[in-house]
């Protein structure tokens, strides 16, 4: 905390007002020097080597192709399927976030009926298993809808996006409600004394302040959502888990099971870890000491 010594710690000191800091190694807490992207990557590599190594040696003894060669051969198919997982997670997150922000604002509505309805919807989707919601979306949404002579197709992955966006919406709604309520009520009173309407206060004063409070849990939610996307394989969407299973069947090699699933695990890790690392950095940055 050397950089802070230039500025006297003031009560209510907002970090957004601080000048840009140059980060020195000694400024980074020990915890982050130990747990960062690079140590994680090194650990992961060691882990993979330990797990794949023995089977790799076995494979070399046999005349069959080595495990590494098989994994390499399937990489393009698996990469395509993993891209599908990422796509599903991004769309589900986008839809869920937009709906969740709306629902969260409704949860603090001054009208009791609106507030209670929004609360019921939030609680319903937040406390239902994701897989069950997915099943309902897959089985209840028709594969195409004919409206006024125009038929709109609903392929499986769009249903999966809708299914996954529902719990995202509910979590987001709770984040927003919490963030809005955490803004000191004095701000509402000051705003109304300055002639702001409720809508103006919400849009121009309250919501901008909720962004930094919601951002870290929002990113955590995205990482969790990405790791939940293999669920959609169960409902017949051809994402990375289904393709892995198909690849294992096609190869028919019993010793391939563990290395192949481990390989997929690495992909998810490499995609999700930077997100959680960035989240904890943002959390530190936005931490307000009052």
């Amino acid at each position, binding site marked *: 905390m050397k950089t802070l010594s230039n500025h006297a710690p003031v009560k209510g000191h907002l970090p957004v007002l601080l000048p840009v800091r140059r980060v020195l190694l000694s400024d980074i807490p020990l915890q982050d020097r130990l747990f960062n992207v690079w140590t994680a990557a090194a650990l992961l590599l060691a882990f993979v080597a330990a797990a794949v190594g023995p089977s790799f040696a076995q494979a070399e003894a046999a005349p069959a192709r080595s495990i590494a060669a098989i994994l390499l*051969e*399937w990489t*393009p*198919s698996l990469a*395509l399927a993993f891209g599908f997982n990422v796509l599903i997670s991004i769309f589900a997150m986008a839809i869920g976030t937009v709906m969740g922000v709306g629902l969260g604002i409704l949860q603090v509505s001054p009208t009791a009926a609106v507030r209670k*309805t929004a609360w*019921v*919807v939030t609680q*319903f989707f937040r406390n239902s298993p994701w897989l069950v919601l997915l099943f309902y979306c*897959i*089985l*209840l*949404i*028709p*594969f*195409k*809808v*004919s*409206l006024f002579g125009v038929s709109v197709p609903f392929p*499986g992955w769009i249903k999966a996006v809708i299914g996954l966006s529902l719990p995202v919406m509910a979590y987001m709604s709770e984040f927003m409600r919490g963030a809005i309520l955490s803004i000191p009520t004095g701000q509402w009173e000051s705003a109304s004394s300055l002639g702001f309407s409720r809508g103006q206060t919400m849009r121009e004063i309250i919501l901008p302040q909720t962004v930094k409070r919601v951002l870290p849990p929002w990113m955590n939610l995205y990482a969790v959502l990405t790791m939940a996307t293999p669920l959609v394989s*169960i*409902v*017949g969407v*051809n994402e990375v888990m*289904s*393709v892995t*299973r*198909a*690849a*294992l*069947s*096609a190869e*028919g*090699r*019993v010793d*391939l*099971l*563990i290395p192949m699933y481990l390989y997929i695990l690495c992909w998810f890790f490499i995609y999700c870890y930077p997100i959680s690392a960035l989240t904890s950095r943002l959390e530190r940055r936005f931490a307000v000491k009052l």
Partner: protein
Amino acid sequence: MKRLMGAAAAIAMVAAFSTAAQADKLDDIKAAGKIVVGVKQDYKPWGYLTSDGELTGLEIDLAKDVASRLGVEAELVPVVASNRMEFLQQGRIDLIIATMGDNPERREVVGMIEPNYYAGGTNVIAPKAAGLKEWEDIRGKDVCALQGSYYNKRVTQLYGPNLVAFAGIPEATSALTNGSCVAFLYDNTWIESQLASDPQWADYEMPFVTEDPQAWSIAVPLEDLDQPYGQLMSEIVTDWHKTGYLIERNAANGIAPSPFLQEQHDKLQ
């Protein structure tokens, strides 16, 4: 509660749209220029994925043959046992060619095309060292199986093994080679083709007499069974048997000769 009922009503309304337009399926397929076929992607060598992402296998050959006879493109959709009949009912696929066994319960849900195009039975693959001789030998022992296989219930009732059900073949075979179970209960056609083609099964055998022969059927939506579409599919399967096309594709995909195919072929001569 009101909210929930509202949601249920909305869902029911949306579901109603799906059943709105039902013209003749065959005309729809020809108008669309493609037939959507549900196939397996994890059942080598009947239907599996190659590393460049292409579906291939005996049933994919059959799907493509159906398409070329109709003069349309074949669009292949990977299905699994738990979703293939729902997909057909929903209209996401037009035809199932996915190692589906023909039985009375399923006949109430989908239109099973006669004649049957293939047949398999129940058997186990087990290490030779286990010394299994007859079905009674698995009583009380751990036996690997697949979730949702129709023969699980029957075998459990008759011989009382302790079934350990897995989601896929790779998981089940992995457990078998780990020694987690004494045998893997599965389709005899798959076991025969594995034993014949793959050196990793050199120390394994299929020790029992194959039981409970089950005919496989391709399927169309139930309401199309007696329509021109269903009748045409029936003619195509008959022709496959008659011309020896199935026997030829069976051999081309490296599957052991099937007595059922030979019998059907001889019957139609």
